[in-house]
């Protein structure tokens, strides 16, 4: 290949990685600098040998690295806007997921029909979330482009007062596995109790014939909408905790509120009519519900105790001068 063509390729590669307004000038400068290097190595002007050119280009380094050093750092969303972007994204995506779950629940309750294709429904949510995320990124990128780094400059100019430092909240790192397992359990429970309650049935094999009889009574299934509301709220809370990575006093309080809601549903179930369609199994079933009620109540007490003790410990650490 012609030695000059290598120079053209290099200059072009650097130029392509630069903003349009700087491209022409930087390209001309790099071309001139390469020529200076070649002349210093004794190469004839206009006819340098290929090996010398390649050696000079190697010394100049990767075109994209050189271009990055010439251009001012380019970011889609700058450090000043990024925290606001993250907050807006978290809130919008969580609210959307909540609205989506609520819509499904309302649909199930009002129309009394199962979800025909749960995967398609879920894919619809994921697609929607990506679309909204893309729109938020686009809007923030536009703000960044039009403010053109002015926000960063203004933030640097503003006098900073240490007294504006936020108070430390009593936080607790969330166990991701536990939270995710909870979300999966709740999604499965919503699907099974609303769309496929017939899956909970007794299987009978007589003379090689397999028959199944629904196990849950109509009375039990009447609680499905309430249980679904509780599981949906638990999913929304868990999703929020996952995005934050930690439990805060408010989220722990909401968790306690949901436990109380769960206890109310379980208590109501126990005092209402039969839970199962099979009277023979009614007593063991009630016993199981009673045990779940007791375990939930104990968990609730533990949660309240932990929260109160943390509050007391937190309030007993005044700031002291060194």
């Amino acid at each position, binding site marked *: 290949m012609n030695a000059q063509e290598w120079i053209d390729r290099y200059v072009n590669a650097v130029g392509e990685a630069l903003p349009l307004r700087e491209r022409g000038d*930087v390209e*001309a*400068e*790099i071309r*001139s*600098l390469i*020529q*200076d*290097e070649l002349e*210093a190595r004794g190469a004839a*002007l206009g006819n340098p040998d290929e090996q010398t050119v390649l050696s000079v280009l190697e*010394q*100049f*380094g990767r075109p994209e*690295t*050189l271009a990055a*050093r*010439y251009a001012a750092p380019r970011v889609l969303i700058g450090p000043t806007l990024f925290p606001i972007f993250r907050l807006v994204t978290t809130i919008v995506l969580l609210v959307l997921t909540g609205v989506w779950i609520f819509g499904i629940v309302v649909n199930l309750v009002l129309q009394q029909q199962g979800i025909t294709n749960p995967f398609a429904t879920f894919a619809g949510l994921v697609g929607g979330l990506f679309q909204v995320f893309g729109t938020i990124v686009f809007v923030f990128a536009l703000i960044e482009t039009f403010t053109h780094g002015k926000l960063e400059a203004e933030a640097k100019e503003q006098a900073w007062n240490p007294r504006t430092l936020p108070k430390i909240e009593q936080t607790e790192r969330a166990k991701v596995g536990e939270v995710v397992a909870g979300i999966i359990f709740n999604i499965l429970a919503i699907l099974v109790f609303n769309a496929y309650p017939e899956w909970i049935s007794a299987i009978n094999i007589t003379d090689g014939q397999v028959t199944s009889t629904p196990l849950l009574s109509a009375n039990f299934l009447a609680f499905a909408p309430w249980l679904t509301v509780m599981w949906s709220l638990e999913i929304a809370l868990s999703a929020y905790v996952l995005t934050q990575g930690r439990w805060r006093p408010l989220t722990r309080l909401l968790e306690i509120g949901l436990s109380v809601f769960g206890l109310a549903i379980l208590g109501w179930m126990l005092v209402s009519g039969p839970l199962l369609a099979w009277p023979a199994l009614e007593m063991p079933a009630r016993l199981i519900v009673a045990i779940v009620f007791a375990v939930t109540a104990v968990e609730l007490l533990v949660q309240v105790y932990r929260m109160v003790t943390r509050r007391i410990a937190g309030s007993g650490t005044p700031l002291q001068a060194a």
Partner: protein
Amino acid sequence: MHENLASELRRGLAVLAVLGLCETLQYGYSLKQRLAEAGLEVSEGTLYPLLRRLETQGLLESRWEVVDDQRPRRYYLLSTAGKAALAQLTAEWKNLVDTLERLGIGKEVTV
């Protein structure tokens, strides 16, 4: 072993050295040569973009000139703001050297 740290230090020093050399008219390659001869090796990828940054900051002025009636070359010269910056940076550099000496850093280590 500590090449990255050394190159970071050289990059910082290059700003002062370039401003100092640009008190007289210079072009990219001449600067690179002068620095290398004095023992300060700065890569092309660092030096040439630095010239442009200093120009953007108003510390250097540049102009294109045709060399040997054949091709253009960009020359750099210290601006008025650059002269003030050079004086300030030189004073700061001397202070830093004094500070290091007071701290006993840079003296020959005897074991």
